[in-house]
């Protein structure tokens, strides 16, 4: 534990040194920069790189896994607490709904040298965010366990179930499968993935009316329940961090987890034998579908609307420097699938690259999706616990969503 901390301190020190000496060329003279971001290694690297070119501007950053809870209130204030927010497909939506972020067209034109067109998130012709990395949830497997039992690497969730049952039957592991099924956001995300894998649509076309209470929804729930039955019985309390720990203790042989976590899974901490046998593969499909039961995500930066233009400019220049930084991409190629020019995908990027190749769908960027996600997270729990039928659970989700959507004025 202490060793890793020391390592972290050393790395950040190195970054600091790097920053001040190597990239002193941004020439930002004034303004104050304050960034809100999620907390995982790639984002820390990204923000540190931006810090490297802060010039004489003030620089503050808040890395928090609770970023979603802070973002809207903090950006609603005028002036806003943060000048930039690192957002993703889902978290940009509430910012758009409340009109809290500014278009970046002028800044991109002026300071966006090196940013590729594919990195630009445009909505209604206006650039609202600049993406720098991609993410998805995909399969991880223990090569040694699968080989020993003669199991091929699963490509579908049906194969995942069969493989897990075989591993359990062999007596090697009691709970061979893991995924972040923690009630709330995580569980809802698993439903979204599986439902999209079944080819489902969340809303009636062109409206905010829910449409998940159908055969695809039922099939999705049944598959989730099968997988839950092969997981640690405490699955409803397990988030990504908890299943990572399960994996590192060698309790799990198959797992669905974020690509952005592969770095910490494959680092030198923990049992070397498990690390060596940990292999990555693309996301699984389900029910004979072609597209994977996974969603594609981008992480990118947005600028607060309620902040002075000078601050916005300073923030943009610093972040744009990182979002077009070939050196960062080369140094931290292991940490993420960067969307930045010059990125050479390594073995840890297999998951995302496979997902893109298999034509995975991006997470739906709809104004009312957050309400659906929230309703899913609490209403499908009782089905997994065996307390109600799949149809009832889906009916509950729709009803809970409808009340919330009415209150928010979507229906």
């Amino acid at each position, binding site marked *: 534990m202490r060793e890793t901390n020391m390592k972290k301190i050393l790395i950040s020190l190195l970054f600091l040194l790097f920053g001040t000496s190597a990239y002193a060329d941004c020439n930002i003279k004034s303004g104050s920069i304050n960034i809100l971001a999620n907390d995982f290694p790639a984002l820390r690297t990204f923000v540190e790189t931006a810090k490297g070119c802060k010039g004489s501007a003030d620089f503050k950053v808040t890395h928090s896994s609770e970023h979603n809870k802070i973002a809207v209130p903090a950006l609603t204030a005028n002036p806003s607490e943060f000048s930039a927010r690192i957002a993703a497909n889902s978290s940009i939506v509430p910012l758009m709904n409340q009109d809290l972020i500014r278009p970046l067209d002028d800044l991109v034109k002026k300071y966006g040298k090196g940013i590729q067109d594919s990195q630009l*998130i445009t909505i209604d012709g206006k650039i609202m965010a600049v993406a720098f990395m991609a993410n998805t949830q995909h399969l991880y497997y223990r090569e040694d366990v699968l080989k020993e039992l003669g199991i091929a690497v699963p490509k579908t969730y049906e194969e995942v179930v069969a493989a897990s049952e075989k591993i359990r039957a062999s007596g090697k592991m009691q709970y061979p499968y893991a995924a972040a099924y923690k009630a709330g956001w995580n569980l809802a995300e698993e439903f979204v993935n599986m439902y999209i894998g079944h080819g489902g649509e969340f809303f009636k076309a062109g409206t905010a009316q829910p449409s998940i209470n159908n055969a695809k929804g039922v099939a999705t729930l049944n598959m989730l329940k099968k997988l839950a039955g092969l997981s640690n019985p405490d699955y409803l309390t397990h988030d990504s961090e908890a299943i990572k720990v399960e994996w590192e203790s060698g309790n799990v042989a198959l797992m669905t987890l974020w690509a952005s976590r592969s770095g910490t899974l494959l680092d030198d901490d923990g049992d070397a034998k498990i690390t060596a046998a940990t292999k990555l593969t693309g996301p699984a499909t389900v029910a004979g579908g072609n597209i994977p039961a996974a969603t594609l995500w981008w992480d990118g930066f947005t600028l607060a609307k309620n902040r002075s233009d000078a601050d916005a400019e300073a923030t943009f220049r610093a972040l744009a420097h990182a979002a077009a930084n070939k050196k960062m991409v080369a140094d931290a190629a292991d940490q993420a699938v960067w969307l930045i020019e010059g990125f050479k995908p390594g073995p840890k990027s297999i998951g995302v690259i496979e997902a893109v190749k298999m034509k995975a769908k991006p997470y739906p960027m709809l104004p009312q999706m957050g309400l659906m*996600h929230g309703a899913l997270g609490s209403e499908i729990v009782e089905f997994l616990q065996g307390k109600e039928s799949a149809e009832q659970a889906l009916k509950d989700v729709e009803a809970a969503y409808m009340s919330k959507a009415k209150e928010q004025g979507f229906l």
Partner: protein
Amino acid sequence: MPNKTFFWFFLPTGLAMILFIGLPIISTGIQSFYAQHDQVVKEVKKCDPFGCTVSIVVDQEKTSKIREEKPLGKFNGFGTYVDRNHLAIEEIGNFWNETNSFGEFVDQVTNLPFYKALIFTLTYCLFVTPNVLLLGFIIALSLNAVTRRIRGPLIFGTILPMIVTPLVGSLVLFWMIDAEGIIGANLQMLMDDPYLSLKSSKTLTWITIIIYGIWHHSPFAFVVFYAALQTVPQEPVEAAIIDGASRWQRVRHIVLPHIYPVVTFVALISLMDNFRVFEPIIGFSAEGSAQSLSWLIYDNLVNEEVILFGSAAATSMMTIVGIAILLAPVLIRTWKEFRTAR
């Protein structure tokens, strides 16, 4: 105390209470009657690294105009109170007509989020409050009988659960009852059931949270009872001993009547506290199996990317009403006693 003196004495507290408690409650009450304006959406082209799609966004130009005119939102009356996520009046009516047996009806109603939360909250209050009173009283009595020399450290040890931050206390227990934790793993061995999990079973989660609640709140009752015990006059106790009263009789007929007002006080405070149960649900990650009214408010405010102010405000108001109803019998009784005493 003359009324005038009392007035000046109470003024600062009164002002602070109005400012920090009264006004926020009024503002919450007002908010609970409003909902968001109808969202004006438009179809636009969205492009990201994975391609372009035609999709919808909120039309900011039109929305901001409506918002400026009426910043509070759309007046909704009791709309939020009676919707499906709160009192669900309409849904309950439908269940009544559709279901065949009373059991089925109750099942349907308790499946609604508000009633689910209400039932957990009431169960928690019902089990924790009396047990806290009982346990606190027993500990106070026993400690009062211990020699003075070791009483200090014992008292300190007893109030530790109250000193430990609720979140930390529940987290420690959470790890212990994990399927791999010391209590969880041993229970599995004892019961010879490898699938036994305290966290996945609803009943066991409830029991865990209730036991935690008793553990956490007893010290408060103990401290107050212990202080009250110090004021019990010794003469009647000694007289009772001479008359041959047993220990139980002494407690029943002398000590309890003497500290009765304090018992009422502790009961009131603990009822209020327990009705607002929240931290253990977060600490135990028990959202899946146990939701309380306070947790519903929290969920509306932070758990989704959209903040549901109206919902949260409505649940807050109903929590206040709930506490008032729970406390009413005790308050009325105290008031009556006060009147007769005068």
